[in-house]
């Protein structure tokens, strides 16, 4: 088991290097100059010398190759460098924000799972009836409604109906769970709807497919109760692809929070990302892309491991 994980971790190194290289060069073709923005953005007549001096201080005047070497060697030692904007270590800047985003993603996952499994099952069992149509329409609507718009509607609704708004500053869940949840539940719902929709659809199509399998016919031929057939023979097999989708979506969720955090004013990595891109803070963007890539890969790995545990075929498949 350990050796398998080690093997898989070894496999992700080239992917991460690829992400690092691609990300570096993509950002360097990005026009705009952070120094100019920082010093002249407010219309103050800062001289060209001052700008050059600041550029040199940040190491932006170095040749591209040497910047690249710095970036890659930094990565090798887990040093993501310093933000070009705040001059603080990227790791520190991310570290203060990542937990909020992860919590929202995690809560959205729970919401999605709680909704998707029963709803998807119901829809599959009552295929082509009104129940199925309602579930499908609700699910497809979940994919259609932009989460930021949903967020705006949620805020508007809270304000208009309850004259209440969530607190503005996030606190740790362990410090004050009620306050924490009263802030983060809203973005979690806004993104969780889409997430639940994706999972519901997968649950439905996966279960439908499983119900067509020969072993379901075998189970019927055994005279099992329909509920037993669905639960024991259907769901367990149907859940496997749903797990994959939940894993993949979890990773994408981190990216999707970019917009939602904006709407809900959540101080997470999504908001940080938009700010960093806007400012041309290369090091910060690089750090965030690496973080998201690592989360994506690790979640995929976790899904694979879970798969191995749940599906005996995977354990010994050649």
């Amino acid at each position: 088991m350990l050796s398998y994980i080690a093997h898989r971790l070894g496999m992700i190194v080239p992917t991460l290097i690829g992400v690092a290289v691609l990300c570096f060069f993509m950002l360097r073709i990005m026009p705009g100059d952070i120094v100019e923005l920082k010093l002249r953005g407010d219309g103050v007549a800062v001289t060209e010398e001052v700008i050059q001096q600041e550029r040199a201080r940040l190491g932006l005047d170095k040749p591209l190759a040497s910047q690249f070497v710095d970036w890659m060697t930094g990565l090798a030692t887990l040093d993501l460098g310093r933000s070009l904007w705040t001059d603080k270590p990227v790791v520190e800047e991310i570290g203060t924000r990542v937990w909020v985003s992860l919590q929202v993603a995690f809560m959205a996952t729970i919401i999605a799972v709680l909704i998707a499994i029963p709803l998807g099952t119901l829809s599959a069992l009552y295929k082509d009836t009104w129940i199925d149509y309602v579930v499908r329409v609700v699910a497809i609507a979940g994919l259609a409604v932009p989460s930021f718009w949903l967020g705006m509607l949620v805020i508007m609704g809270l304000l208009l109906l309850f004259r209440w708004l969530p607190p503005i500053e996030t606190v740790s869940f362990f410090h004050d769970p009620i306050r924490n949840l009263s802030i983060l539940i809203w973005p979690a719902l806004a993104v969780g709807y889409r997430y639940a929709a994706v999972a519901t659809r997968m649950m439905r199509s996966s279960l439908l497919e499983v119900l067509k399998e020969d072993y379901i016919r075998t189970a019927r031929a055994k005279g099992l109760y329909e509920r037993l057939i669905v639960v024991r023979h259907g769901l367990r097999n149907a859940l496997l692809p749903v797990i994959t989708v939940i894993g993949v979506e979890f990773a994408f969720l981190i990216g999707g929070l970019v917009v939602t955090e904006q709407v809900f004013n959540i101080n997470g990595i999504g908001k940080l990302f938009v700010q960093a891109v806007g400012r041309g803070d290369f090091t910060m963007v690089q750090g965030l892309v690496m973080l998201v890539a690592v989360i994506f890969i690790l979640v995929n790995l976790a899904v694979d491991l879970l798969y191995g545990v749940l599906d005996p075929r995977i354990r010994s498949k050649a």
Partner: protein
Amino acid sequence: MGILHRTGRLAALATTGLATTALTLGLATAAGAAETPRRGGTLTFAVTAEPPNYDCHANTSFAFIHPVAPHYSLLLKFDPANYPKITGDLAESWTVSDDGLTFTFKLHPNVKFHDGSALTARDVKASYERIINPPKGVVSARQATFDAVASVETPDPQTVVFKLKGADASFLANLASPWNCVYSADKLAADPKFPEKNVMGSGPFKFGEHVSGSHWTGQRFDGYFRQGEPYLDGFRAVFMSSSAVTNALQGGQVQAEFRGLAPADRDRVKNGAGDKVQVHEAPWLASLILVFNAKKKPFDDPRVRRALSLAIDRWQASTALAKISILGPVGGILRPGYELAASEAELTKMPGFGKDIKAARDEAMLLLREAGVTGLTVNLTNRNVNMPYTIGGVYVIDQLRQIGVTVKHEQLETKLWQSAMSSGNYDMAIDFTGDFMDDPSLNLTKYLSTEISPVNYSGQADPLLDKLYAQQRGETDKAKRAQLVREFERRAMEQAYVVPILWWNRSVVLSTDVKGWEMTPSHYLNQDLADVWLAK
């Protein structure tokens, strides 16, 4: 909230705005003067951006001033109740020599830094030298404003003397700049970059903590040299996006936002929170300007530039856009209402400011024909910031359509807009002016030849304007200076390298609990919070 009938809605909108202005401006000041300040409490206010680092001398954004200003003292400052009067901060008194070249300041005794060390003339000198001649690796954003300074001397620990090379009408005002924080000379000697990462001043509040992306706190400095101040126990600046501010104000989660709200947001908070908030209004020391790329055809022809400026109906814009944006007053190159600014009568005589828009547009089309320009299609480069850039841009596009000019709107992220401007890679663009004080030497920089002024992106080279600028800067006689400025303004509007579109309005919404804060036309000024107190 129901959906009201269109006209009724608009009327309601307009009246609310006007009524609040009149009421609060009068009442707030009167009440503030009468009441006795109460000690205690923490002021929570919103800041819509975040300072990148902690060095006053290197920064340029209001987002820096709002959380950082309470920690530092300045040599001079603007008197908040009587802007633009200058008063002393660290300086107890000062004298100016007759030739206007020597300025002598007497400092308050017993001023202490937050670490307990005494603040003396030596610290003032070290701070200003850092601004005027920054050591390697230190950014000084406003170095150029002090290029007249010959030397800074400290004859004794309580006295600072500035000697100038030539007369500078703006010198004293520049010493009141909120950016010129006084640092500890010892700390600077040990590390010239000390202020970048540390906050250690002599202001009313000690530095508490700064959590990236979240908030910034300060606590009362008991050793503050003004007895009894500050009144607040501390302050908490919360960083949030501008869209969240309105909700936070309305929900009472923050008590203030000091930069200024758009009218829609102002009215929303006002309607939502009712008498729990007070609104302060003032003209804003900022304007939206239109820059033509004078190096590119057809804008190398002054007739074309002037024609486009003529097509903009600034008076109609003033009423229409004020409803939906912070844009408002019609003005020239100086803020309407400033003593050196052009009067309305003077203004209407300048091209582009006439009240007969039809005549102006006819003239514009004639000019275009003379210049041989027909069916003009140009790009308008703009920032992708809504308020007020997009609004101004959309307005300009609509106005130019009236004289048959097709404009493509190219909205860029601020960073890309900035580099398009500096590299001259645009046809015409929306830009802005904004300063911490009314002063021609500062405010005219957007209209000077590009070679002299790095912030004029039109690529213009007009020796006459440059000469007039230099003359007014050295002219200490107010009337004569006004004349020179007027001459400059006329020339600038005729040549139309850069033309104003509209000036801004500033609306600040505070909780009614917040007392002792005075509105000024600049959101950079009066933010040390020493006089501010909470009613409960």
